[in-house]
C-alpha cells in the first residue's frame, strides 16, 4: 500500500489541522478553570505569607484577598499591604531568584515595622519534585514564620539563639538558593534606605 507524495502531504496537513483544532478547543474549554485556579492559588499564597492561613474555599480566598490586600510599591517592587480595620498589619514582599533548575518566585511576609517575618510562600518554582520541590511543603515554609530581620544580618540554616531553619536533605543547592534570594531581597528592599 504505497502512497504518493501528495497523499502524504495532504494527510499531514489535514491531520495537523484536526489536532490543532482539537487542542485549541480543549484549551479554550479549560481556560476559565485554569485561570481561576491560578488566581486563587496566588492570592491564597500571598494571604499565607502574611499569616492568614485559615482554610477557605477558592471564592472566599478571592473575596478575602480583595478586602484586605492593597497593592503598594515598595522599593520599586509590586508588594502587597495587609490591612486589618484600616490598619497596616503586614506586607508581602515579592522575591525572585535563580535556584538549581530555574527561577523561583515567591513572597516573604513581614510585619508592619518590618522587624520580623510572618511567612514565606512560593508562587512559581521548577525544582526537582521530591527533592528541591519540597520547598513547597508546609514544614519547610512554616520555618519562615517570625524570624528576625536586622540590617546586616543574614538568615542561615541551622540552630541559632533566636531562630532555627533546617535545609532540605538531598536538596542543598535549592535550599541555599532560597536563603540567598530571601536575604538579598531583605537587604535590597527593606534596608535600601527607601523604606526606613
Amino acid at each position, binding site marked *: 500500500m504505497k*502512497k504518493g507524495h501528495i497523499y502524504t502531504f495532504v494527510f499531514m496537513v489535514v491531520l495537523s489541522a484536526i489536532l490543532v483544532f482539537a487542542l485549541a478547543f480543549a484549551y479554550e474549554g479549560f481556560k476559565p478553570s485554569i485561570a481561576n485556579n491560578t488566581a486563587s492559588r496566588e492570592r491564597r499564597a500571598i494571604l499565607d505569607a502574611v499569616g492568614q492561613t485559615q482554610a477557605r474555599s477558592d471564592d472566599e480566598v478571592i473575596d478575602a484577598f480583595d478586602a484586605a490586600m492593597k497593592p503598594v510599591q515598595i522599593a520599586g517592587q509590586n508588594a502587597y499591604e495587609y490591612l486589618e480595620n484600616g490598619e497596616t498589619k503586614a506586607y508581602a514582599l515579592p522575591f525572585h531568584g535563580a535556584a538549581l533548575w530555574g527561577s523561583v518566585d515567591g513572597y516573604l511576609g513581614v510585619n508592619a515595622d518590618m522587624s520580623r517575618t510572618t511567612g514565606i510562600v512560593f508562587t512559581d518554582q521548577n525544582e526537582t519534585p521530591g527533592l528541591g520541590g519540597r520547598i513547597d511543603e508546609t514544614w519547610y515554609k512554616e520555618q519562615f514564620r517570625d524570624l528576625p530581620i536586622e540590617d546586616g544580618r543574614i538568615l542561615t540554616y541551622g540552630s541559632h539563639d533566636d531562630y532555627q531553619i533546617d535545609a532540605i536533605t538531598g536538596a542543598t543547592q535549592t535550599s541555599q538558593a532560597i536563603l540567598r534570594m530571601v536575604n538579598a531581597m531583605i537587604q535590597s528592599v527593606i534596608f535600601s534606605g527607601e523604606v526606613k
Partner: protein
Amino acid sequence: MADKPMSIIKTQLFSENQVLRQVLGICSALAVTNSMNNSLVMGLGVSFVTGLSSMTLSAMRNIIPRRVRMLVQTLIIAVYVIFVDLTLQAFLPDISKQLGPYVGLIITNCIIMGRAEAYAQSNPPIPALIDGFFAGLGYTGVLLIVSLIREVLGFGTILGMNVNFFGFETWTIAIMPPAAFFIIGALIWGLSARAAKKTVATTK
C-alpha cells in the same frame, strides 16, 4: 491475529514488563520514584496516554503513510500529553504543580512509542488500547515498587504518611537517582535470572 485480552494483560504486566524486560521508560523511572505519590500520578498519566494513543494510531493504521508514521505517532502522543497536562491544571492543580515538568516529559517516555511501533500499527484498536494501557500499568507497578523502597528508606514515609516508628536514620542516597539504578537493576536481574532458569528447564 487479535490476541486474547487476558494474555495481553498478563504479558504487559509481567512476562514482558516494559521497564523490567524491555528496559524502556527508564529515564522517568529513575526520576520520579522517590515518592509514591509522584510515581502513581506519573504512571497513570503514562497508562492513559499509551492506551489512547495506541488506540488512535491503530484505528488510523491503514491510512497513515509509512514513511511519516513516526511523525504521526509523535503528533498524536503530544496531543494526548497536552490534554493530560491541561486536565491536571484545571482539575488537580496541586498535583499538577508538584509534578511540574514531568507531565510534559510523558511524551519522551519510550514505552508509548514502543507500543505504537511494536503493537498498535499492526493490530486492531481494542487490543491496542488494552495493550497500551496495561503496558502503562506494568510501568506504574514497577514505579510503585521502586518508590515504595525509596520512600521508606529515604523519607521514612509511605504516600507521605510517617512509618518511621523506630526512628532509624533515613538514607539520603535512597532519594537520589543512583538508588533507582540499584533497585531497578536488582529487579531486572531477578526477573531475568528467573526467565533464564525457565528457558534452561524447558530445553533440557
